[in-house]
């Protein structure tokens, strides 16, 4: 099976996103994301996919809002290491060069949280509490994703189990390659606005690559002026791209305080 050289990535159209949160819900259901007794403290809630609310900072009536969904960026890093991968002392998180996905092995994680300190996107979540499943829900947990226990870190994996399932099916049908839509993440499928496109950035036929641009998909800064990534200047080389026609949105992607932009916005 030649599955070498795939590099899965995502493009999120911020002009289309309405902030409905379907992606968050789909992600939670798909990946057995646990609940806890009191969900009011969002700083200890687990949301692999999180929707941020951005504003242009102007008073009414010039206020504009943009919703920015943030999964794990599946960073590739400058040396093939995402910020979180190189720091994990137990190799509980790893970069898979055959798919470009940063995996997470909960049973090997021992909860030092160094990866959380390393991730600038806050895409990693610690299980502060024992998981709680509301009555009857335990029976409907997905058998494809192992539930995580207290004391370990978890994060979005681009629904990696779906990739495995798709590959198994293809293998069963004596195929080596996947069709573009055979492997899709739960959030991509759930988005009612069609704001999320998912595919192989190394495959020039995939829609995501066509929009992002094949060169950009290989680590360069997107040439399409509407396409950008978060915090590119840090060298994390994310595989999640965003697009927006609004300049103020694009400006919030990177810390350009050193160039006099975005200064004092906190």
């Amino acid at each position, binding site marked *: 099976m030649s599955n070498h050289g795939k590099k899965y990535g995502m493009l999120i159209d911020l002009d289309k996103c309405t902030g409905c949160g379907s992606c968050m819900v789909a992600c939670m259901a798909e990946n057995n994301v646990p609940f806890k007794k009191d969900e009011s403290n969002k700083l200890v809630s687990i949301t692999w996919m999180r929707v941020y609310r951005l504003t242009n900072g102007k008073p009414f009536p010039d206020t504009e809002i943009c919703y920015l969904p943030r999964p794990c960026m599946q960073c590739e890093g400058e040396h093939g290491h995402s910020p979180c991968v190189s720091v*994990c*002392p137990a190799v509980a998180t790893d970069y898979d060069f055959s798919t470009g996905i940063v995996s997470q092995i909960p049973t090997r*994680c021992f909860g030092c949280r160094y990866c959380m*300190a390393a991730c600038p996107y806050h895409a990693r979540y610690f299980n502060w509490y024992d998981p709680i499943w509301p009555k009857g829900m335990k029976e409907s947990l997905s058998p494809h994703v192992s539930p995580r226990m207290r004391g*370990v870190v978890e994060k979005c994996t681009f629904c990696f189990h779906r990739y495995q399932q798709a590959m198994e099916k293809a293998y069963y049908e004596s195929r080596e390659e996947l069709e573009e839509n055979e492997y899709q993440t739960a959030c991509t499928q759930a988005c009612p606005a069609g704001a999320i496109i998912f595919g192989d950035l190394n495959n020039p036929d995939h829609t995501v690559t066509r929009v992002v641009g094949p060169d950009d998909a290989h680590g360069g800064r997107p040439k399409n002026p509407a396409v950008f990534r978060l915090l590119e200047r840090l060298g994390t080389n994310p595989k999640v791209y965003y697009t927006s026609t609004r300049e103020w949105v694009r400006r919030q992607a990177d*810390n350009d305080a050193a160039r006099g932009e975005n200064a004092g916005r906190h």
Partner: protein
Amino acid sequence: MDSALIPEGVKRCPLPLFILGVLAVGAVLLWGVYAMLLCWIKGLNQTNMNDYYGFALWIWADLAVIALGGGAFFTGLLRYLVGKDELKNIINFAVVIGFICYSSALLILAIDIGQPLRGWFIFWHANVHSMLTEVAFCLSCYFAVLTIEFVPLVLEQRQLNKVTFFHHLGHNMHEIMAVFAATGAFLSFFHQGSLGGVAGVLYGRPFAFRESLLVWPSTFFLFTWSAAACGPCFTILVTKITEAITRKKLVGDPAIHTLAKISGWMILTYIMAKTIDTVYWALVTAPEGGFTLGQFYSHNAFYGYWILIAEVIVGGLIPALILISEKGRNNPRMLVLAAVLACVGISINRWVMVLQVMAVPVMPFDTWQLYIPSWQEVATTILPVAYGVLLIAFAHRYLPVFPQEKELNP
């Protein structure tokens, strides 16, 4: 009552008074143990850490005690390898303090992971690229070395020393102590350094990230340097506190002044290196990440420029100047002041590298995160202090920690 256990020729307070003191500190210790058990049994939800603040109070305490415990390896290095003979009068105590600091650090780490039973994964599945792996290995090895350095002192206890085997074992261990001092210095270089590296390699966090010198970020060297510089100040400070409590002079001035002088020069050179590092980071590294220096020190309720001044000037330059001047270190009050400031300075440095790193927003639309530790975190952070006080109390009472005590208190 326990006079048969007390080193010959020295006086100790009455046993009931000693027991009273031990009980008072023991109560604090138990409070910490209770909090520790809560963290293990109920989980880290007992803390106020969160997904933004994954490292918090006790990680700072961990880094701080390791830095302050640096007096053990550096004093050992000066005594056994450089040949500063006068330090033989303080080396025992430096080893006791180092032992306390490092065992505390390991205890804190065991609490921190919340799942101590899984702690061995770090050795079993070791990722050689991770700075934390280096920390874990060097820390454990160095703790073993410190234990080996501590054992002869225990064997010299009046009653134990009567056992011929223990007597010879202790004596022979003393003979080869230079080997362990050298091993300890080597291990310390790497684990102090890798603790600095833990923050310095976080290229996703421009507040912590530093360019590399050889294969290490500059914080690697700064951490080792600062621990070697300020650790001896902590040794001096604890010695002075012990002297004040026991109302006895325990270590002669030559040992203290030699240590103080070397520490002073080390702090001065460290502060120069730290300043160069900070300037380069502020002018080159941070702007490359899109940040200005001001951004790290403004728009929040706590982290202002004052912290930089407190660390570098108040806790660095001032104690360095006091300690390198003969007049300064010969004045008992100034000496203690300098030692306190140096310890505060290095603690602020470790605070900044752990907590401010977490607090600074990196994504442009994020906000500063401040946190207040829960009582469980405070109790478990105080726990090692209580444990240290107890160990020093017992060591002072029953072990020949201070070879000059008899001659200084005729």
